[in-house]
C-alpha cells in the first residue's frame, strides 16, 4: 500500500500551503489588516484603544496606523508584509502610514476578484505595473513647486501641516499646531534634523496651552546653593562618577593597623575628589552637567566655585544637550584644551504646571527648539506627541522635496482618471487589471467619506465626473460633506508622501499577489520534558 501514502518531503511539523489556499490565506490576512486600520483614515477617522495584555502597562489611544500595527501581534505572512510597509513608510516619510496599508489592501481585494475570474496573477501584475507608471506620471505632472518663493512655500507648509493634523487628535487646534510645527521646522533651515526639536509632555492644562519655546528644556534641578540663573554659560557635559574613583578590582581592600590611618585614607580619597573637581573647573566652565550622580561633597565644591552643577541628567537629555549646545561629552579631564565646551546665552528655571525645569536659551545650534505639550490625560498627550511628530516629519520632508500635491482625495482621483484613460486605450486583459488599479485608488476617498458618515457613492461619483471633465482640483470637503475645490480649501499634501504611498502600496500588493506557496519551517525541536515523570 506504499503507493497511497503521500511522499513525505518536509520535516515533521513543517507546513505547506499551496496555490489557491496560499493565495486565499494571504488575501484574507492582508485584507483583515487593512480593515482594521481603515476606519482611522481621513479627517473624521476614528481612534483605537490599544490595550496591553499585561495590566500595568499604560493603555494607548491612537489614530496613527503605524502605532496600531506595531502593537498588534501578527501571525500571517501577508499581514506581516503590510505591517512592514507601514513601518517603512513611518521611517521614510513619517506620515501616510494608514493610507499605504489601506491602498495595498484595496489592491488585493481587486486582485482577489480578478483571480477568481481566472485571470492569471502575472497578467494582473503586468497591468498594475503599467498603471502605476501612468499614475506616477499624472501625480508628478500635477505637483506644484513653490520652493523658490518663501512666502508661498510657507503657505504650502502651513496647508500641509493643517491637512496632516486634521486627521489627528490635534484637529481642533490645528491652526495653532500647524503654525507651531511650521515654525519649528523652518528654524531647522533645511537641515531636517528632527533631533533638534524636543517634545516635552506635561500633564495638566489643555492642548491649547501648548507652546513653542526656543532653546532647550531639561527636566532637572540645579544643585543646592548654586546659581539658578547663568548668563553666557559655558557648559561641560560629562559622564563620570562623582562619588569616588574606585579601584574596580574585585576584593581589593586596604589593611591598616590604626584608625588614624583609615582617617588619612579617607582624607586622601577626598583630596582625589577635590582634585577632580578642580580639574573640571579648570576647563573654564561655569555649568557642569553630569549623567551620573554628584555627591554632596563635590556639589559643595562646585557651589564654592560658583559653578552650576546638574546631576543625573538622563542619557537622552545629555546627548541632545551636547547636540544643541555644541559641547562634547567627556569622561576624563586631563587635557582641558582639547575639550569643546557647549555654550548658551542663558540658563534659567521656568515653571510648567507643577514642575520646575531648566531652560537653555540662545544655544549654539540656533535651530534647536522645544515644544511643550499640555493635555488632560496621558493618552491625549501621547497621541498629541505622535501626531505632532508625524506633522514634523512630513514638513521636514517637504523642505527637502518642495513639491506638493492636493489632498482630500483629489490626487487619488486624478491618478485614477489617468489610469482609466490608459486602460481604455490598452487592448488585452491587462486593461482589466488597470481598471482594477484605478478602482483601488478611488477606494481611498470612498473610505474617507464613509468614515465621516457621508454618502460615499454619491460623492465619489461627483468627484469622478469632475475629474473626467478635466477639473483636476476637485476633492472632498469633509467639513461640509460635499465636493469642493481643494485648491481653495488649502488641502495640500506632500508629493513625497503621496508618491511613497502609491509606490510602496503597489509593491507590497504585488509581492503578496506573486505568492503561490507558503512554507512554514518546522519548529525548532525541543528536548522532551521529563520533569513530570
Amino acid at each position, binding site marked *: 500500500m506504499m503507493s497511497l501514502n503521500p511522499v513525505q518531503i518536509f520535516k515533521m511539523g513543517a507546513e505547506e*500551503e499551496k496555490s489557491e489556499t496560499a493565495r*486565499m*490565506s494571504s488575501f*484574507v490576512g492582508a485584507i*483583515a*489588516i487593512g480593515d*482594521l486600520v481603515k*476606519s482611522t483614515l481621513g479627517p*473624521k477617522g*476614528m*481612534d*483605537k*484603544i*490599544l490595550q*496591553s*495584555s*499585561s495590566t500595568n502597562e499604560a493603555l494607548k*489611544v491612537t489614530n496613527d496606523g503605524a502605532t496600531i500595527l506595531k502593537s*498588534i*501581534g*501578527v*501571525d*500571517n505572512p501577508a499581514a506581516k508584509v503590510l505591517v512592514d510597509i507601514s513601518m517603512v513608510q513611518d521611517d521614510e516619510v513619517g506620515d501616510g502610514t494608514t493610507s499605504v496599508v489601506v491602498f495595498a489592501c484595496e489592491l488585493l481585494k481587486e486582485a482577489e476578484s480578478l483571480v477568481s475570474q481566472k485571470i492569471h496573477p502575472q497578467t494582473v501584475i503586468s497591468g498594475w505595473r503599467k498603471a502605476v507608471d501612468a499614475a506616477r506620471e499624472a501625480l508628478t505632472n500635477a505637483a506644484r513647486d513653490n520652493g523658490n518663493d518663501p512666502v508661498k512655500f510657507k503657505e504650502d507648509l502651513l496647508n500641509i501641516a493643517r491637512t496632516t493634523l486634521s486627521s489627528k487628535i490635534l484637529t*481642533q487646534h490645528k491652526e495653532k499646531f500647524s503654525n507651531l510645527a511650521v515654525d519649528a521646522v523652518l528654524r531647522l533651515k533645511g537641515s531636517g534634523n528632527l533631533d533638534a526639536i524636543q517634545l516635552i509632555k506635561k*500633564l*495638566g*492644562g*489643555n492642548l491649547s496651552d501648548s507652546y513653542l519655546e526656543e532653546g532647550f528644556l531639561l527636566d532637572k534641578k540645579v544643585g*543646592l*546653593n548654586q546659581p539658578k540663573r547663568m548668563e553666557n554659560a559655558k557648559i561641560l557635559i560629562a559622564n563620570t562618577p562623582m562619588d569616588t574613583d*574606585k*579601584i574596580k578590582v574585585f576584593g581589593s*581592600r*586596604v*589593611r*591598616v*593597623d*590604626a*584608625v*588614624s*590611618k583609615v*582617617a588619612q*585614607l*579617607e582624607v586622601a*580619597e577626598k583630596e582625589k575628589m577635590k582634585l577632580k573637581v578642580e580639574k573640571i573647573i579648570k576647563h573654564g566652565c561655569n555649568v557642569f552637567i553630569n549623567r551620573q550622580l554628584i555627591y*554632596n*561633597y563635590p*556639589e*559643595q565644591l562646585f557651589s*564654592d566655585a560658583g559653578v552650576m552643577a546638574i546631576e543625573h541628567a538622563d542619557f537622552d537629555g545629555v546627548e541632545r544637550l551636547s547636540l544643541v549646545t555644541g559641547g562634547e561629552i567627556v569622561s576624563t579631564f586631563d587635557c582641558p584644551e582639547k575639550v569643546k565646551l557647549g555654550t548658551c546665552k542663558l540658563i534659567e528655571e521656568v*515653571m510648567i*504646571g*507643577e514642575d*520646575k525645569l531648566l531652560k537653555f536659551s540662545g544655544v549654539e545650534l540656533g535651530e534647536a527648539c522645544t515644544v511643550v505639550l499640555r493635555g*488632560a*490625560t*496621558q*493618552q*491625549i498627550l501621547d497621541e498629541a506627541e505622535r501626531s505632532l511628530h508625524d506633522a514634523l516629519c512630513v514638513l521636514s520632508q517637504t523642505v527637502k522635496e518642495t513639491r506638493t500635491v492636493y489632498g482630500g482625495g483629489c490626487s487619488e482621483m486624478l491618478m485614477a482618471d489617468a489610469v482609466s484613460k490608459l486602460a481604455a486605450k490598452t487592448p488585452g486583459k491587462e486593461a482589466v487589471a488597470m481598471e482594477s488599479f484605478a478602482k483601488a485608488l478611488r477606494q481611498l476617498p470612498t473610505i474617507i467619506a464613509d468614515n465621516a*458618515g457621508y454618502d460615499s457613492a454619491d460623492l465619489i461619483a461627483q468627484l469622478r465626473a469632475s475629474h473626467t471633465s478635466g477639473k483636476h482640483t476637485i476633492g472632498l470637503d469633509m467639513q461640509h460633506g460635499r465636493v469642493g475645490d481643494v485648491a481653495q480649501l488649502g488641502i495640500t499634501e506632500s508629493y513625497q508622501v503621496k508618491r511613497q504611498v502609491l509606490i510602496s502600496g503597489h509593491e507590497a500588493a504585488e509581492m503578496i499577489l506573486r505568492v503561490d506557496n507558503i512554507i512554514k519551517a518546522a519548529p525548532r525541536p525541543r528536548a522532551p520534558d521529563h520533569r513530570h515523570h
Partner: protein
Amino acid sequence: MPVNISAGGGGDNVSRSEYKDKDKPTQIRYSNITAAKAVADAIRTALGPRGMDKMIQAENGDVTITNDGATILKQMQVLHPAAKMLVELSKAQDIEAGDGTTSVVVLAGSLLDASANLLARGIHPTAISEAFQRAAQKSTEILESLVTPLDLADRESLLKSASTSLNSKVVSQYSSILSPIAVDAVMKVINPATATNVDLKDIKIVKKIGGTVEDTELIDGLVFTSKTSGAGGPNKVEKAKVGLIQFCISPPKTDMDNQVIVSDYTQMDRVLREERAYILDIVKKIKKSGCNVLLIQKSILRDAVSDLALHFLAKMKILVVKEVEREDVEFVCKTLGCKPIASVDHFVPENLGSAELVEEVQTGSSKIVKVTGIACPGQTVTVLIRGSNKLVIEEADRSLHDALCVIRCLVKKRALIAGGGAPEIELSQRLAEYANSLTGMEQYCFRSFAEALEVIPFTLAENAGLNPISTVTELRARHAQGEKNAGINVRKGAITNILEESVVQPILVSLSAITLASETVRSILKIDDIVNCVH
C-alpha cells in the same frame, strides 16, 4: 486552513460583512461610555458639602477614608481602558486646579450620557465631538463674563473660597481653622503684587498624630518630627546658630574596603583612643564655628552620627537633630538661609543659619523640634497638621492641599465665581439660548451639552437630601428671572443668593473642569475599537 490574524485573540474579528463592520464600533463606543459612566457614578455621591465619604481598603489592608475624587479614583484600580481615562482626567484636574476633582469626573460622566443619547439619534461621533468643543469654548466665554474680579489683598474673599472648598470635606467642621492657615501660608510664600503662580513645594506639610485637627498650626519656620538626639544635651536653644551637615560624625570609613588589624592588647587601646580623638576633633571644629544647633543629613552608607559623637555634642551643649532626609535639605536651606556643609573643612560661620529659638516640644506622646524666629527667612512656611488618628490626618492633609490649590488658582487667575451650582445653571441656560441661534446638528449637541451641565446642581441637591427635580427646576426659574447668583444653599436646604452666603470658588476650577472634561469625552467618543496587543 484557519487564518490567524491577530495573536491577541482578535482572530474572530475577521469578518468582512458590511453588517458587522458597522455594528462593532457602535458596541465598542457604548461599552466605553458605560464603563466611564460607571466610574462617574461611583464617585457621584462624594460631591458637595453634604457628599458622603468612601472607605477604600487597599490590597495590603490599609484603609483610606476620603471624599477627594482624585484620591478615590487613584485607589480604585479600574481595569477598563475607558474608565482609566477618567481616572487620568481627575489626575489632570488635580494638577491643573487641585480642586474640583470629583466635579470634573461627574461632569464627564454626564457629558458621556448626553453623547450616548445623541449617538442613538444617529449623529456621527465626530460631529458631536466638534460641537462639544465649540460648546466648551463658548462656556469659557460665558463663565468669564460671570466673574467677580479679586484683589489678593482681599483676605475676606480668599477665606471664603478656601472654606467653600473645605466645607465639602471630612474635616469641614474645622474649616474656620484650616482656611486662614491655607490663605496665610500661600500669602507668605509669594509676593502678592507680582506672583502669577505658587510653588506649593515651598509650603511644607508635617503630619503628627496626637491632639485634634483644631491643634493644626501654621509655623513661620521649620518643624522636624524627630526628637533631639543625645542624652544630656540641651533641648532648647535661644539665639541658635544652625548648621546643616552632609558628612558623618562617626569613625572614618573609606570607599574601599578597609580592615584595621589589631595584633596585641596595646594596639587595641590605641585604636579606641584614636577613634575618640578623631571624633572629638570634628566636634571641636563644629563648636569652634559657634554652632549650637546641628542638623544631620541621613546617610545610608554608614552611621550619620555615632553614639560617641552624640555624647560629645551633648557635652558641648549642641542640640542635634538627625535623620534629615536629602530631599528636605533644599527646603531647610531655603528656610534657614544656611548652606549645607559637606565636609568639616567647610564648617565656617558663614555657612550657618540663625534663628531666635529652637526647641523641643512635647506633643502628646511624642516630641517635635520647632525652629522659629528665623533671622533672614526665605519664602517658606510649615504647616503642622495634628489629628487623633492616621485616617483623619491623611484626610486633613488632602483637604488642606485642596484649599491651598484653591488659593493658588486665585493667584494664577484673580477672579471668583459663585458656588453652589449657580454658575452651572446660568451657563446651561445661556448655552441653551445660544443654541437657538445655531442650525443643524450643532444645535442639538449644544442643547445636550447645556443640559449635561445641570448634573452638578442636581447631584448637589441629591446629596444634600433635597428633592433634586424640584430644586433644579426652581433654580432654572430663578435664573430665568435674572437672579444670576441663585444657588443651592445646602445648609439651609433652600435656594438663596449664594454670594450672600459667601460660597465662592475660583473661576479656574470651573474653567478647567469644563475644558478637561470635554476634551476627555471627545477623545472617548472618537474611539471605535479596542485592540489587544502583544509585546
